[in-house]
């Protein structure tokens, strides 16, 4: 490899997904899981970490195999690599950190179906070197994680009045306790996740005019 490991071009692979090519708000990938797990902050963070563990690894593996994969079954090969990695992670968690595995439960399975992973393998890892693919994987899972955490933050705060399970809005504020405040029940339901993501897209495009299509 002639260029340095952290050349400007490579760093762009890391930073772009956080803004200009964010997987959720710009590529509109991974919406399904962003919707399912963001009712609370904790599962959002756990999901962000899980995807960060799987995506760079899968990217590197596919990138290493990219010159051998038969074109006609490449999607199947990608799926097998992702599924195998996820099962491995799940088995190891169950054996060594059982508590974490109990908390992750469904999310582990959800990682396999996460479109971001398939999307990045297909769009990037199949045509690029392992190191670049690794950076792309880190960048994209970070971009995904940031949005997840933002959505989870607002949904838990406004929907349940707590953050990470800790009470933020005092009990005495609630109408039930003679106060003036009531949780917004809609925040807990999935449609609100889409609306929050929509608002994030709006804010982002307002700040970054280059994203607006003609």
């Amino acid at each position: 490899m002639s260029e340095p490991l952290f050349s400007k071009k490579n760093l762009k692979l890391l930073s772009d997904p956080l803004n200009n090519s964010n997987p959720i708000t710009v590529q509109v990938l991974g919406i399904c899981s962003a919707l399912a797990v963001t009712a609370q902050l904790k599962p959002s963070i756990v999901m962000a970490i899980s995807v960060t563990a799987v995506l760079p690894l899968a990217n590197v593996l596919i990138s290493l195999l990219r010159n051998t994969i038969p074109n006609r079954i490449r999607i199947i090969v990608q799926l097998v690599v992702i599924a195998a990695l996820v099962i491995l992670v799940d088995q190891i968690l169950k054996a060594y950190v059982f508590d974490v595995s109990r908390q992750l439960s469904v999310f582990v399975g959800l990682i396999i179906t996460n479109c971001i992973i398939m999307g990045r393998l297909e769009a990037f890892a199949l045509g690029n070197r392992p190191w670049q693919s690794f950076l792309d994987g880190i960048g994209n899972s970070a971009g995904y994680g940031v949005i997840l955490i933002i959505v989870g933050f607002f949904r838990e705060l406004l929907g349940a009045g707590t953050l990470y399970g800790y009470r933020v809005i005092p009990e005495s504020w609630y109408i039930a306790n003679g106060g003036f405040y009531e949780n917004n029940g809609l925040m807990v339901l999935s449609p609100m996740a889409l609306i929050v993501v929509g608002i994030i897209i709006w804010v982002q495009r307002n700040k970054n005019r280059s994203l607006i299509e003609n």
Partner: protein
Amino acid sequence: MDRNSNTYTFLYASIMVILVAAILASVSMALKPRQKKNFEIEKKKNILASVNIESDASTAEDLYAEKVVDEYIVNVGGKKVEGNAFDTDLKKERAKAAKDMLYPVFEFKTDEGTKYVLPLRGSGLWGPIWGYISLNDDMNTIYGANFDHEGETPGLGAEISTSAFEEQFIGKKLFDDSGELVSILVAKVGEMGAEEHKVDGISGGTITSKGLQNMLLDDFSGYEAFLKSKK
């Protein structure tokens, strides 16, 4: 070799599948004993939690051995039958015909007298839910409850395993004054029911709440003869 030929594609797919299968199978075999141990500890932890004893992974086994007095299995008629109560797999039991189902019972000695722990199993929205309910020796009043699930929605149905939900069950009664089994109503907002047989369900988790209610009714019906014989 031509990467687009059929032979190459077939070979590639076969080798990949065999390799991946071998890796996954050996990892699974190697980790099985550890995982099984973890499941047992988790089960002991949950049973202890239903008699309101806090434990963690390192203390669960010792505490369990110290507090448990008796473990046995009863049938629908309330008679004791042979077998290992702790290893009884409720998933298999609930698949049997109603008259053949076996019901494990765990007796615990606590500072507040003998408690009877009954394991329960039912279905939520996405998959199985299960739990342990401990009864006072009047075989009617709930002393503690612990619920868990495989994959209920976080923040909604999954709330059944929070202590805020579980603590509602303490002091509730299974039988009414005339001795009829009424079990516990897991109520939606506005749903009416006698206070001593009712807990609040989870908003946004109606199917899980109702699944839990059905699980309680079904399984307590199975234990009914045993409970009445002990009264």
